[in-house]
């Protein structure tokens, strides 16, 4: 039921996104298979996520569109983000397993790796992406930056600096933001 919709949307994406279009035209067989294969793979991931969701997070398509997902991550206990519920938008490219999904925080968070627009700096979502990674693993990686921020590759240097200098203060501020935005 969701599949044909996904297929048509993927076609739209291919038309609207110039980068994807050029990619498809470069190697001919990709253009015929990648749309449906990415859809298939996303569907499979959806099923697997529903069957066996990782603790503390869930994810699924926003509506009929298989390529636009919404995910929630619950602030892990033992961190200043504890108790917060963070919403994320996940957008799959149409050649998905070969390109990383785009993840954007929709909930404000005081974190050195997440900027005010919600962009995340996570290596596996950029250069270290591998087609063998799944959304489940991405969510787990996101959970791990909740517990262990990476101040050496920051998006918000001020927060990273504070984290390195005064972790207690950082935790206090983060907990305050959690209370304000994520509950």
């Amino acid at each position, binding site marked *: 039921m969701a599949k044909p919709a996904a297929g048509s949307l993927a076609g739209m994406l291919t038309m609207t996104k110039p980068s994807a279009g050029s*990619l498809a035209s470069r*190697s001919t067989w*990709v253009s015929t298979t990648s749309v449906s294969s990415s859809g298939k793979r996303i569907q499979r991931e959806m099923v697997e996520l529903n069957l066996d969701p990782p603790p503390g997070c869930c994810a699924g398509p926003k509506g009929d569109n298989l390529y636009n997902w919404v995910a929630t991550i619950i602030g892990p206990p033992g961190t200043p983000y504890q108790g917060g519920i963070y919403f994320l938008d996940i957008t799959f490219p149409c*050649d998905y397993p070969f*390109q990383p999904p785009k993840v954007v925080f929709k909930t404000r968070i005081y974190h050195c790796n997440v900027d005010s627009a919600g962009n995340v700096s996570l290596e596996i979502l950029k250069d270290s992406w591998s*087609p*063998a990674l799944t959304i489940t693993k991405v969510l787990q990686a996101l959970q791990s930056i909740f517990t262990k921020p990476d101040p050496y590759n920051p998006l918000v240097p001020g927060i990273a600096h504070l984290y390195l200098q005064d972790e207690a203060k950082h935790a206090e501020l983060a907990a305050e933001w959690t209370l304000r935005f994520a509950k």
Partner: protein
Amino acid sequence: MARREEETKQSPRDPKVRARESSEPVKVVSNGTSGDSSMFSPRFKSVAAMAGWDEESLLIASLVVDDTPERQVKYKKRSDLHFKTPPTNSSRRKRRAQRRSPISMPVSVLNLDDDEETKKDESGKEKEEPQIIVNKEKETRDDKMAESSGVSCPPSSNLPCLDKLRDELSCAICLEICFEPSTTLCGHSFCKKCLRSAADKCGKRCPKCRQLMSHSRSCTVNTVLWNTIQLLFPQEVEARKAAGALNSSGEAVRQIPEKAFYNTRSVQSRRASSGVPSNREMTMRRRRVILSQDEEDDDAALAIRLVQNTEAEHQNPEQGAYNNHRSIRPLRTSSSRRIPSQDGDAALALRLQREEFMEVFRVDHGQSGSSLSLARANLRAMTSRAASHRATTRHL
């Protein structure tokens, strides 16, 4: 069709061969080769003795096999290849060797002791294909378990690890069962296509461990793994094949009616539904084609020849005087009303003989299954060949 006619023409027209047919071991005047009993290995001889087979007639049969013209050698080669169930490396090498020297074929058919290790696990059940499937699944599963994850499971249990296996055998890129898996140098396997597009788009690093991959290796199919997958997940493979291309499906459909026609051990109901195969039927059949070629190929070969001979016989019916097996005829007609010819009788006789033979050593020697089943397979191949020869020569 044209090919079959050629076969017929090429076959030797030896009346002795005719006289010596399957069910009654006929005392044949030896044609100068009776001293050549060393052709059979001792094991083979003992098995044949158990089955009540006349050694002389066996020898004649083997000579028939020897005399078989090129075409039929090819045929035998094919069925013989399929006897070796899981393609291990060693058997593959052997196959190649056999391909190179077709002259050595008859010898290798008779030599039981050599091929023994390639026939690991095929137990004596030939009757139902599902049984065979289960056997092979167990076998391949064991292999897989040993090499991949270390997850152990008792081979006797009935596929409890299929889910684990599914996970283990699926491609990390498309998350489906690997289709034509290709293995990287670092030992990770993906669908060939997936791996190729991963290399194109994400750089030449293994998607799993990020080690550098080499070009050439990434495009070769890991045949052992691929065959294993085909044995374990025929439906999935079939679905992907169908989705990928609809090219080779016609061939299977063409072969099936002939196969089903003479397969007396297969259930009648299955044959009844052999009109237009449904999707599921098709996959089932494909699976059988893959898994039980040892049995079916023989039958198919025999069926093809016999059907063709039947046609020939209708043209000159007075040749029917050669019928050696009138006593079995009533039985035959009751079991199948389609072929009212002596070739039908011959086929039935052959089958009865086979079954009797299997019965004998199923009771006596259930244990030493591998060599015995190989022996049985060889005997079967021989008898079918001999029968076909007898049948073809009769009409020419």
